[in-house]
Structure formats: structure tokens, C-alpha cells
């Protein structure tokens, strides 16, 4: 087990290194000079050189990249002499726009994205699985057709359309909800709930529709398995037959997909956060891309990759608990 985890951890670091490298290359070769952007309108060549020196942009590519990557684990110093700034590990540099520590920005915004992701996940798992299960059990009935038609429609609506429509109806027309703002739960639980309700609904809709279809398909497949015939031949109650024999085999594959989806969402729900103006990691990503704020873009890219890679490892570990046929063997 320890050997397995060590191997996986090494894999995680390698993947993050590669993600880092590719993102860095893209910016090094494609983006306009950040120093020119920071310098602004009243700019002199001396000032540009100075900025480049402070940001380390005058160094060759390998030195810049290694400086950045090493900074994540060991921290790093910017500038020299009186201008020296120490950036403690985990150092993701400073925003070109606000000069804020990027790590502090991430720490500040991650709870917002996590709240959005967790609330939406609870909603979509519950709705998706219950609807899919009912559809499978009532396969071919009007309920099944209606639910699956709705699911197809629901997964076809783009998030921003749904978000704007909900906002127009609930906030502007009916005025039953306030405009969302990222208030902490401890400040005002009621406002917190009202603020996050629409983002949750918007994000959950697409996933719930997808999960309903997945659950339905998996349950129908499982119901046709030979072991279900055995369970019926044993005289078990229909409830026990469904709950014990059909549900677990049918839902186990959904854990894999859920792990991936949820992990990706922790890296920020870009569209939903932007439409509702929630200051999460997703909105940070959108803003940084619009302003070409390289350190922030690096950070959100790495963060998303980190969650996906970790999510993968967690799913693999959880799977060994869910499916007795899957066991860990260290390679």
C-alpha cells in the first residue's frame, strides 16, 4: 500500500510538472511582454528593463521555469538588495495586475468554488440517481419517457442561458432571491443559502440530467444480469433484490465519473461563477485570462490539474472498497 501510494504521488508530481511546463511554454512563446503591460502608458525602456529584472523575465526560459516550479515547493526571492521580496512556499508568484500574492488569492477564493461545487454535487447526485433509478425500474412507461426527454433537454441547455434565465425570473421578475454574493456562511446563513441556490441549481442541472441517463442505463443493464435472475429465484423481496443486488453494481461505475466531475469543479466553475459574479477560482481564471495575468493563469491551471489528478487517485482508492474484484497491486 505504501509503495503504491508513493508511486502514485510521484506520478502526480510528474503530471503537475508537465502541466506547468506546457502552460509556461504557451505563455513564453505566445503572450505579449508582461513588463510592457504592467508599465502602462507612460513607459520608458529603463522602466521596462527594471520591471523585467524584478519579475525575472530577463532570465532565459529554463531558469524562469525552474524558478517558478521550485518556488511552489521551496519559496523564492524576487528582486535584489532593497527591493528584495521573499515569497514563502507554496509560492505561485504575484499577480501582474494587483501585485497580490497568487497563493493568497487562491486561498481566499477556493472556499467559494468549493461551496458551489459541493452544493451542486449534493443536488445532482440526489436528483440524477433517484430519477435514473425510477426510470430504469419503470422502463418504457410515460414516467421514463418524460424523465429522459427532460434529461435530454436539460443537458442541452448551456449554463449561461440557464443562469441568465433563472436570474431574470427569480431575481428581477419575482424578486424571491437576492442577487448572489459570496457571503460566508457564518455571517448570514440565510443570505448565504439564497446566494448560492441559483449557482447550485444551474450547475446541478446539466450534471443531474447526465447522471439520470447514466444511472438508468446502468440499472437496466444490471437488471438483465444473470445474478439478478438468481436473486429472484431465491425468493428475496423485490426491495432487497433491487437495493442489494442491483443498486451497488449499477452505481459503482458512477463513482468514477463523479470523482472526475467533482474534482474538475473544485478547479472552478468558470461560466457559472462569472455569470453570478461569485469570486471563486473560476471567475479568477476568467479575469486572469482577460487581463493576461500570467502568474494567476499558471495558478488556476495548476490548481485544476491538481484536483483532477488527486481526484483520480482518490477514485482509484475508493474503488477498491466498492468493488471486491479490484485490488491494489504495486507495480
Amino acid at each position, binding site marked *: 500500500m505504501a509503495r503504491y501510494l508513493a508511486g502514485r504521488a510521484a506520478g502526480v508530481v510528474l503530471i503537475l510538472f508537465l502541466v506547468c511546463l506546457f502552460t509556461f511554454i504557451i505563455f513564453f512563446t505566445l503572450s505579449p511582454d508582461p513588463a510592457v503591460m504592467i508599465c502602462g502608458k507612460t513607459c520608458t525602456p529603463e522602466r521596462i528593463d527594471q520591471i523585467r529584472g524584478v519579475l525575472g523575465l530577463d532570465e532565459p526560459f529554463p531558469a524562469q521555469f525552474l524558478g517558478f516550479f521550485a518556488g511552489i515547493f521551496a519559496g523564492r526571492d524576487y528582486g535584489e538588495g532593497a527591493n528584495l521580496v521573499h515569497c514563502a512556499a507554496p509560492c505561485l508568484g504575484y499577480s501582474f495586475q494587483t501585485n497580490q500574492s497568487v497563493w493568497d488569492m487562491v486561498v481566499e477564493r477556493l472556499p467559494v468554488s468549493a461551496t458551489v461545487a459541493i452544493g451542486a454535487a449534493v443536488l445532482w447526485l440526489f436528483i440524477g440517481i433517484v430519477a435514473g433509478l425510477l426510470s430504469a425500474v419503470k422502463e418504457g412507461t410515460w414516467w421514463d419517457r418524460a424523465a429522459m426527454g427532460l434529461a435530454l433537454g436539460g443537458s442541452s441547455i448551456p449554463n449561461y442561458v440557464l443562469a441568465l434565465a433563472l436570474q431574470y425570473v427569480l431575481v428581477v421578475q419575482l424578486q424571491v432571491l437576492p442577487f448572489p454574493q459570496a457571503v460566508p456562511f457564518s455571517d448570514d446563513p440565510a443570505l448565504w443559502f439564497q446566494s448560492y441556490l441559483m449557482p447550485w441549481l444551474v450547475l446541478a442541472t446539466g450534471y443531474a440530467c447526465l447522471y439520470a441517463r447514466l444511472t438508468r442505463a446502468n440499472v437496466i443493464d444490471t437488471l438483465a*444480469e*444473470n*445474478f439478478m*435472475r*438468481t*436473486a*429472484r*429465484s*431465491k*425468493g*428475496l*423481496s423485490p426491495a*432487497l433484490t433491487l437495493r*442489494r*443486488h442491483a443498486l*451497488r*453494481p449499477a452505481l*459503482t461505475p458512477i463513482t468514477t465519473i463523479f470523482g472526475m466531475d467533482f474534482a474538475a469543479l473544485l478547479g472552478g466553475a468558470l461560466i457559472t461563477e462569472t455569470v453570478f459574479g461569485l469570486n471563486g477560482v473560476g471567475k479568477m481564471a476568467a479575469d486572469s485570462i482577460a487581463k493576461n495575468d500570467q502568474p494567476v493563469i499558471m495558478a488556476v491551471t495548476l490548481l485544476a490539474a491538481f484536483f483532477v489528478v488527486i481526484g483520480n487517485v482518490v477514485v482509484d482508492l475508493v474503488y477498491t472498497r466498492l*468493488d*471486491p*474484484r479490484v485490488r491494489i497491486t504495486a507495480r
Partner: protein
Amino acid sequence: MSDLLVVEDLTVTFSTARGPVDVVKDVSFTVGRDETVGIVGESGSGKSMTSLAIMGLLPKGAAARGTIRLDGTDVLGASPRELRQLRGDRMSMIFQDPLSSLNPYYTVGLQIEELYRAHRGGSRAAAREVVVGALRQVGLPDPERRAGHYPHQFSGGQRQRIMIAMALVCSPSLLIADEPTTALDVTVQAQILRLLADLREQSGMGMVFITHDLAVISSIATRVLVMRRGEQVEYGTAEQVFAEPRHDYTRMLLDSIPRIDDPLDEVSA
């Protein structure tokens, strides 16, 4: 004493897009207590559908007509609840492929235990003892430990032994074995056949043994029903059917068995 199982004019009909199709037509036979009746036929002859109809396990879209009586109980007319009480308790079934017939997510002990408790109730601990006893009875080594293992951790023959232990844990009066040895190696086949014959003899239950293999039937059944395209083409004692088959199809089936005794007879003659 009356027969254990009476099947009269059993017809199984599938409703399809092109109208109803009879997959079993007017099949009649009886199984006495303490007797094995073999049902023989090629794939699609309706032998499995006949057995599923007896268990009340016909797939969606299939309906059975006629009479099926188990020990006086009308099976076709039984409510779903009454059927559940019969299944696993008074009649049990074992299937062709023991691996896919066991749920991969649960230990074999639990899968036998849940059947026992569904019919007899009682604590898990008490049921566990019965389960271990049932596994020991079918010759599974180290049953206390093995009850906690999952189906994939057993060999094919062991899995079929487990299915047999499960089917017999409530001591049913009728066992339906649907091609129980087809998916197994030849040497293991013989062991499983021996086991089924022994257990049947010990318990005095009736058995319906379904196979496409006439050689197997001849060693285990006292009476034989030959089916083809859903119809019953021959029905009689094993000696009768094997010695003087009345139907061409049965003769053809018998001729398809490679015989080792003919040349031997010539030599000894």
C-alpha cells in the same frame, strides 16, 4: 402418493412486434418425489423456458398457460408473494454459468445467508452456521473461511458447488438444474453430476435436469422428456427412450453420440 410436480399442457408465449410466438407448446410431464426427470433438446428447444415457467421467472413479455402444480400448489395462479415464498424454499434452481449467476459484489456466505433468512428468518449468526454446514455438504474445503470470500476467488467447479449449496440450503422438495455442468471442464462435470445425484438421493427431493447432452441424462435421469422447437417429441422412462426411441429426432440425437461400445462388441463377439 401424488406426484411432486405436475406440468400439463404448458404453453409459453412471447408477445413480439410480429405477434405472439409460442416458444413452448403443450408440454406435459410429471416429476415424482425422489426422482430425476431429464429434459433434453438443442438450443432454442424451449427447455430453459419450461424451467423458468415452473419457477415463475419468465422474462418480460412472456406468458405461460396451462397447469403447473408443485405439491398441490397452483404455481401459475400464485400471487407474486406466494411465488416468492415457493422460490428458494420449496423449489430452487441452479444455472448454467455459476460465475455470472453469483453477484460479484458480495461474499458467497452472504448470498446463501440472505436466501436462508428470507425464508427462515433468525439471526445472522444462526444463519451463518447453516451456511457453513451447506458449504461443507457440497464438499467445499475450509467452509468457515471460504464463506467470507467473493465469487471471483473460486474455481468454476467450486462456484457451481456454491450455487448448489445455495439452492439446497432450505431443503427444497424440487431442484431444477438448468445445464449445470455445461460451462465446466469435463472432469469437473463428472464431479458435479455425482454430487447432484448424491445430494438428491440423500434428501429425497425431485429434480428436473436440463441438458443438451444425452450422455449426461442417461447417467442421472429415470425419465426423459425430449423437446424440439418448443414441442415435446418424446417422453418416457430413460430405458424406453434410449433403447427404442419412437421419434426420428430422438434417434438422430442418440446417433449423434460417439459410441465406444460398438467396435468393442464386435471384438468380443
